[in-house]
């Protein structure tokens, strides 16, 4: 097992999680490859995201719009903004071709907004492109544990 790579990848993903929990969206947007995709599928086994319906399938433009909406104050579902705390763990390197690394981990996310705390658990799969001693995100897939169920609205970036 390549412990150094595992450490690098988990440090990068933990940092990303911390940015999202603390609303550091410009920094978060800068983590991405221009052609990167942020995906929250409905069916956890889905692989053809482009030709199926997802909860989110954001290219660079949509990621920027999503971030703008969260901070705009124009949306009643995100003002007040939900608070989130997520922990990421159970990191595993699934593939490494020297240029890109595929990493899977578990995410436990608690959300609190207006008297209600909710819990979303997910498998995260990252395709990371090496960039010096760090990475850029080429793809992030958030497979919610209950993605195939009727959900409640999600007013943040899981």
């Amino acid at each position, binding site marked *: 097992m390549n412990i150094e790579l595992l450490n690098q990848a988990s440090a990068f993903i933990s940092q990303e999680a911390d940015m999202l929990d603390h609303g550091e969206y410009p920094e978060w947007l800068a983590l991405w490859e221009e052609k990167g995709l942020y995906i929250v599928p409905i069916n956890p086994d889905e692989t053809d995201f482009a*030709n199926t*319906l997802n909860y989110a399938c954001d290219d660079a433009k*949509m990621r920027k719009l999503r971030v*703008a909406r969260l901070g705009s104050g124009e*949306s009643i579902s995100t003002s007040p903004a939900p608070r989130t705390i997520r922990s990421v763990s159970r990191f595993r390197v699934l593939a490494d071709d020297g240029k890109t690394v595929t990493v899977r981990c578990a995410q436990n996310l608690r959300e609190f907004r207006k008297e209600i705390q909710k819990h979303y658990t997910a498998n995260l799969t990252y395709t990371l492109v090496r960039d010096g001693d760090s990475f850029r995100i080429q793809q992030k897939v958030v497979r919610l544990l209950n993605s195939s169920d009727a959900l409640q*609205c999600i007013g943040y970036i899981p």
Partner: protein
Amino acid sequence: MTSQANSKGHTLADLVQHDRVHTSLYTDPAIFETEMDKVFANTWVWVAHTSEIPEAGSYKTGYIGRQPVVTVRDRKQQVHVLLNRCRHRAATVCEGHKGKTNSFVCPYHGWSYSLDGALRGVPSPESYGDLLDKADYPLVKLRVEEYAGMIFATFKDDIEPLVDFLGPAKKWMDLFMKQGGGFPIKVGGEHRFRFPGNWKIQLENTTDAYHFPLVHKSFLSSVDKQTEEMLDFVEGPGFVEDLGNGHSVMVMIPDLVDLEANLEAPIPERFAALAEELRADYPEDQVRRIVRAVGGSGFNLNIFPNIACSMAFFRVLRPVSVTETEIHHAVITMDGGPEAGNRARLRMHEHFQGPMGFGTPDDSEAWERVQKGSNAGTDQWILLNRGLAKEQETADGRRSDVSAETGMRAAYRQWKKLMTA
């Protein structure tokens, strides 16, 4: 509580007036119980689009009111809507949302039913002697009829034919299905979510143009100028029309009522790249037809009580309890149509709809606030008089401006008729 008065001295009939309804319609558990019988078990209820059960053995589970049902296509292509309940001791015979099967086998003691509901097999039948005639115990079957690919079922055997129930709504359904762009339309997946509020709050919303610029401000900020102007319809020339039997149509963008008209109009900027991509495979007239269809219809058709044909998707509602409702937003794609066009539809749907869309969560928040606010006061009313001043009789019913509450008044008139029958 059909005819006797509640604690405020109102009978069910008093709770719906021509210009207002009583808040207890959102909050009273006894009214909800009555609705399950008098509305949902007593009229045509939408269960599926034909594309959701494409082949013999395809099924879709769901609910009519709170009763679990299975919609299934049998080997002769006939569609059945069956109560999802074993005739032995009630276990559901089908789980999962959609799928394909050869038969329904109850998991508890193994009674098995064919796709048309007939009881075929009973394990170890000797114990029954001659007490059990299988012909007496098929899955309970509802009356089923279909129009424009929309499958409806009813518990009420002597109800009027579906086409009569739909009445003038039929021509709007025909118009809506033109968004196949020349291909059959297909449900291409759905967003399902719940909100803590009464089902009628959502029923009203599909015919509520008034909220759009305010609640969907953040969505409008995320689209191009041309789209934003197109969606600026509240003071525009559109209208709402009561179509009878609780149905209504809200035309927001009159230019997009007939997707096969006006094909020579310039292609909107946001579809220029898609049109260019389609030109590789399709002649210009077909490109224009597909692109126009991809944009969706300019109206919402509300069909009482649980389905709407809403711009570019089907909106399905399911009452869960007096204060909880499940919504499905099913995306419509072109069956056999260009992948690029379908991808555009999928991305548009994701942009507005669903729990992570830029539109739905704000609707959901507003509905939740309606439910919360409804707990205030002891004898308060919900106002539904917007647009009443200018309402006019038409051949199909009555019509007022696009942000009129005419469609809600139509729905509540039908609600009252069913609840007090």
